[in-house]
Structures are given as structure tokens and as C-alpha cells.
């Protein structure tokens, strides 16, 4: 089992009002699955992704990741999990514009205290893996949207994660480029990486082995 959410609630205080975003979410994802979470915008998909990705904590409920209960984890442990177990891919790519493609890919590896040469070797491998060899020194501004998303995926892969979390990864791309990116995710999944994609696009969701729908703060298998 990769991860399991048990009765997750999340609410925010918006001024004097409490907004309930997640109302008892239950989800179990096994290793090697390709899951998409579909739902209209503002339904809490991103909040769910932040909780799964340890960027946020649930108000109540239990989150079990790779067999470990995570409620008591401190910041340092959460950082370790984000750094070594999870690869994030965002809609807006979130690359650092100052850095070259290679340096962007090295970013998660920098926090591992390992030799720079090792980092660079890994970065070149994953750059090649996403079909971007030869673009090492390009800065994000010099690359197209699809190319930037490939760099972002390479950055997620550099950490050799067991789970890739992608939040609307094709949302900023045209449909053809979006399909290319989807193909890349499908390949990675075939190689054994668990992928969880959040999307509002039924065409994207349709290519996933399993689709769950988020509605009114809860999840149902679609």
C-alpha cells in the first residue's frame, strides 16, 4: 500500500466563518497505481493534494503513508518525505527562472548533502529520460511550456520518488503537448512509479486506470 487517507477533515477559518473543505475523505492508493482525482474547481482537490504531499496537515483524520501514521511527524521528517518520496508537478511548472534546466532539476538533490557531481549525474540521466538531453543550460524562459513541464517532471524524477503528485499538469498546455506529457506519465507509471493526477479535464482522467471524483468534500470512485 502506498498511502491511505482515513476520514480526513480539513477546515479553514475565513474571518469569522469556518469553511469546511474536506468532509471525511477516504482514499487508498496502492503502489504502482495510476489514479486521477477529478472535480470542479474549488471543490478541494488542491487541498487534498497538499495534504497528500505533506505541504498541509488535516484538521482531523488519519493519514498513513507507506505504512506509517504521519500525524505526529515534525517539520524535518515531513521535509525528508517530500524530498525523497514525493515528486511534485505543478500546473505552472514552478521552475526557478534564474537557474538553468540542469540546476532546476538538481534543486531537490541539493538538500541531500551529497556530492555535486552525483547530483549532476542524476540530473543528466532524468533530463535524458524526459527527452530533453542537450537543453541542460537553457533557462526556463528559453523553453516552451511543454518543455518546461518536461523539466519539471525531470525535477520530480530526480528525487527517485515512489509517488508523483501532479496538480493539473496539462492545464497550461495545448491539447497536443498535454497529451505528450500524459504519455510521459503513463510511461513512468509502467516503470512502477505511483502517479496521482489532479485534473478537471475528463479526457485526461479517462486515460488513468482509476478515477475518483471529488464532490462536496468527499471522494467517490467514478
Amino acid at each position: 500500500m502506498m498511502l491511505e487517507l482515513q476520514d480526513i477533515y480539513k477546515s479553514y477559518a475565513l474571518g469569522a466563518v469556518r469553511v469546511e473543505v474536506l468532509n471525511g475523505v477516504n482514499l487508498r492508493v496502492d503502489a504502482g497505481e495510476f489514479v486521477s482525482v477529478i472535480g470542479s474547481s474549488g471543490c478541494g482537490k488542491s487541498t487534498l493534494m497538499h495534504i497528500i504531499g505533506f505541504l498541509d496537515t488535516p484538521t482531523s483524520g488519519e493519514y498513513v503513508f507507506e505504512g506509517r501514521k504521519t500525524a505526529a511527524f515534525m517539520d524535518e521528517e515531513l521535509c525528508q518525505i517530500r524530498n525523497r518520496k514525493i515528486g511534485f508537478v505543478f500546473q505552472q511548472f514552478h521552475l526557478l527562472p534564474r537557474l538553468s534546466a540542469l540546476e532546476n532539476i538538481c534543486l531537490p538533490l541539493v538538500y541531500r548533502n551529497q556530492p555535486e557531481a552525483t547530483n549532476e549525474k542524476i540530473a543528466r540521466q532524468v533530463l535524458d529520460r524526459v527527452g530533453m538531453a542537450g537543453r541542460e543550460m537553457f533557462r526556463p524562459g528559453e523553453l516552451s511550456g511543454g518543455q518546461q513541464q518536461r523539466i519539471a517532471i525531470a525535477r520530480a524524477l530526480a528525487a527517485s520518488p515512489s509517488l508523483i503528485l501532479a496538480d493539473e499538469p496539462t492545464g497550461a498546455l495545448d491539447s497536443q503537448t498535454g497529451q505528450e506529457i500524459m504519455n510521459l506519465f503513463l510511461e513512468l507509471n509502467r516503470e512502477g512509479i505511483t502517479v496521482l493526477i489532479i485534473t478537471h479535464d475528463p479526457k485526461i482522467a479517462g486515460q488513468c486506470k482509476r478515477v475518483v471524483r471529488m464532490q462536496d468534500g468527499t471522494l467517490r470512485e467514478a
Partner: protein
Amino acid sequence: MIKANVIEAARSLMSAKQRTFLALLGIVIGIGSVIAMVSVGTFVKEEALRQFTDMGTDVIRVRQDYGEGKGGGGVMSGPGGLHLSDIDKIPAECPEIGEIAPYIAVYGALRYHGRQMPAPALGVTSSFGRLFRLPVTEGRFVSDLDRYMSFCVVGPEVAAAMRQAGAKKLIGEKLTFKQRIFTVVGVTPKVPVGSMRPYEINDGIFIPITTASRFPDRPQIDDITARMVPRGRAAVAVAQLRSFFANNVPSFRPRVTSAEELIAKMEKQMQLFTLLLAAIGSISLIVGGVGVMNVMLVSVSERRKEIGIRRALGASKRDIQSQFLVESMILCFMGGIFGIGLGLGSSYLIAHFSKWTFSISYDAILIGFCVSAAVGVFFGFFPARQAARLNPIEALRSE
């Protein structure tokens, strides 16, 4: 990790050149003024102590204490003054005292080739030259055989004035002081003066003490400098001198000060003085530090998104904090290097125009480096902590 942080910080500083330059300027001026102030304090102290490196610290000065002057009288001295014959007895009666040099200071106008300048004259014995370690660049110093003679030795200021008036060779020239004509027999160079060596050494002329005592206004001997015997103890020597004057010249109220006491007092004063200067410099350093903090806060708020990305990719709060701390430390360290240059440069100029001897104060450089690092940590800490405490999700959402 540290190397990566340093590279990253340098890159970020380079990308905002103008902001970096302005923050740097504040630190440069701050560190520069601390170093300049500390250096100037050191110069002044060294200048004040230089007379002792020339003269040695085994000297004692005896002066008339004018707190309660009382009439005395005699051929050589005015009320409360001393007789040369009394003074000559000192080495015999005070075993710790090796040699003595009494002197009389007379003030008047000096005339040479129709030019007139106010100048002091010191009536001295031949021991004066030895005791105050005065070298002679031309001719000879005042001798004990010059009793009542109109010979004089000129100090550096008067010698310079005479040369300016056209004198080629000073020895043998005639000067008028207080309507008496003196023949120059020697020239002394400029030496460091202070509370032990009177300033008249550089500004005036030397004449035999017997001659000086014959001026119509009957100047008196009320200043004696004594050198102790080798390995003499200052406290014992001071006590011996006090009891000598109490027994032999009860009308003279001596104020006895040893070089050791003078140096100790002076060092205490100089410490306060340097502290005051350092405090003034520190104020500008604090202003510079606040500038750095400001720049760092702007840098943090401009890079919220970057912080969010880094946090998502596994950077811990500590990683983010150290990234920004390294940036502010680099800023301050660079400021420190330029500031040390500025401080040394301006203290050199101050020394040059004040005619003090310039020396590089390694203490000041060390202080400069330590303080700049400390400013970097201190003023970088708050912005760095703010960066580390950002909520990663909110940071990711920001543009």
C-alpha cells in the same frame, strides 16, 4: 550545501545589483567609521606614549603644587621655588634617584634678523639633554661650563624659522631673547612630547639655567625631572623625594608623579576615548545593519514563490533560514572588506593631516571582520526567520 547556499546567495545578490550596492554602501560606511575611529584612538594613544619609548619609563617628575603656594625666597628662585644648591643634593639623599634635570621655563619674544616670534626658553643643565634623551643634530647641547653665558641651543621650530629667514648655517648665529643676545651653539630635532616632556622642547630654545635665572622677572625653578637608578622602584623613589623636600625645602610643595602613574592614568583616559569613538562608529554601523535588514526583507518578499518551491521540494525551515542568512552574511562580509579599506584609508588621511604616525591597527581589522559577520547574522536573522516561517502553500500561490 554551504557551497550551494553561497553560490545561490551570490547569484541572488548579483541579480539585484542596485539594491545590493545600496545595502553594501551602508555597511561599508559603518565598518569604515568603526575602523577609522578605533585607529584614530590608537594613533592618539601611541602619540601620547611615544615620549616614553624615547625617554624610558624610569623617570619621575616633580612640580610645584600651586594649590597652596607659600613664600620662600632666594637668589635663584621666586617664592616657593627651589635653589639649585638644594636640588644638587637630591641624588645623594635619595638613593633611588640616579640623575636630575631641573628646568626653568621663560616666556618672551625671540628676534632674529628683524623677525619677531613669541617663543619659550628653557633654562636647563647639561643633564637635561641626557635625561630627556635629546639628540643634537648640529653643534652641542648646553654644558655646565656655560654658567651665566649667553649661549643657546635652538629647537626644531625656531631652527626652521631661522632657515626660513635665510640662515644657511645656524651655529654661530645671533638671536635676541628678552633684550639679550644669544649665540646659537647647537640644534635639536623634533621629538615626541607629552606630559613628561614639556612642549617647549620643540617650540623654543635652551639656555643655561643660571642665565635664565638672571632675567629681570626672577623666574623660579619649580619643575624637576629625575631618572631612577637602574632597577629603581618608582614607589620608593617617590617617597624618598617627598621626604627630601619636606626635610630640606619645607616651603616647596612638591607634586611627584612617576612615569608609571602617568602612563596608567593616560591609558585609562585613552581607553575611554577609544570607547567613545567606537561608540560613535557603531551608530553608523547599526544604521548600515538596518539597511541590510531592509534589503533582506525585500528579498524575502520578492522570493516568496521560490521559497514555496524549495519547501515543496524538501527544503526544511533550517535550509531556507540558512540560505537567507548566508546571503546577508556575504553582503556584510563584502561590506566589511571594502569598509576596512575605507577605514584604513580615512584614518591614514586623518593621521597625515594631524601629523600623527600612521600604523595599521590589526585589532581594528579583526574588529571589522568580526563585527561585519556579527551584523550579517544579527540583521539577517529576522528576515531569514521570516522566510523560513512562510507557509509553503501560501508561498507557492504568490506571484
